[in-house]
């Protein structure tokens, strides 16, 4: 199975504030807050981890069912792509 990688778009900045991760899209001035799991996904993605590895890491770190987590990860990736915050790096 091919490994699926994403990378952060060039126009975004990440900033942690009061234990919350904020993504700023410099291209359109929009901002997005991420919860703890979302912030961890972005962190692992920016380290170059692929989706399978990201999901595996999260399963070890959070008390969550695998099917629920896989759906949540995919939902977040879809949303980040829709807003041009990440792009495919495969």
């Amino acid at each position, binding site marked *: 199975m091919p490994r699926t990688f994403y990378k952060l778009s060039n126009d975004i*900045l990440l*900033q*942690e*504030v*009061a*234990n*919350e991760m*904020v993504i*700023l899209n*410099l291209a359109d*001035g929009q*901002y*997005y*807050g991420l919860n703890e799991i979302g912030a961890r996904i972005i962190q692992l993605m920016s380290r170059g981890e692929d989706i399978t590895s990201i999901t595996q890491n999260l399963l070890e770190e959070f008390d969550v069912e695998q099917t629920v987590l896989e759906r949540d990860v995919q939902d977040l990736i879809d949303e980040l792509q829709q807003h041009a915050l990440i792009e495919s790096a495969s």
Partner: protein
Amino acid sequence: MTRQLLKYFVYGFVWQTDLRLSSCLTSADGQTDVELRRVHELSEPPANCLFTSPLVRNGLPFLKTYGTEQRLLIRYPGLVDIMVTPRHIHYVPAPDSDMALIEAQCLGPASALWLEFNSILALHTSAVVVDESAIILVESSGSGKSTLAATFLSHQHALLTDDILPLTVTPQAVWGRPGYPQIRLYSDVAQRFVADAETRSSVHPKIGKKMIPVGGSGFGTFHDRPVKISYIYVLNRVEDDNARIAIQDLTPAEGLHALIRGSSAANTLQALGLQAHRLPRLARIVEMLPIRRLTYPSGMHHLNDIYHAVATDVDIRHKKSFH
């Protein structure tokens, strides 16, 4: 003809300038921090365009900026070219330009970029002193910052700034430096607070805003020293006369976004790549200060109620912090 350079305190720094600053600035001694003066031509003006304002005046963009992190040209076509570096602000007026307008651009956007070049955060905001610390009223133009600030002045609070607010973040506190002693109000608003408002100079012939001196024999009082910032209110004026005045906490993400939007010359800072350096300091401010959204109805007849709502909020929070 070369005019004599005089020294004034602006934003807590010593400015040496040939502008006859119309806003009653305090004279200064000591080493000059920045030189602001007219030159015949700008040496090696940068050519790479960073930002073009969507606003148009006389068929030309209202504003264009060019440059690099240490050398910035701000061009107001038909009015003035201003070059900003970490030590100088030099300007070349267009023929027959209105010097009051040039002064406003030098004290406003050019000063903000000079402050940012010197690693000082510059918000475009109004701030007033309440109980020995300052509250910031932040939002984009036209949301009523100056009108609300004037209401505070009419209730015996001092003005810290009505244009640029330089902020310094220390481990213990966020400090605001004073701006210059002037508030800009639309004519109808100015008449509510100042008897001779109609005789005051306009910010621009086509803009109905008046430049009202603050302190001395002018309107209200001016706070001319740095002061700790206690609260930030993000203004949300709604066009509904029946809307309730409400004050709510913002999430950290909302607070950070409000401070980015409230930054002076945000588009140019972004194009220069300076936002990445500013963000950790803005985030620190969000972590240190309560940031609250103040929702209120439009209309001058609501101003006193809005003032009392904010003053009560500040009072309650002060009392909580002492217990």
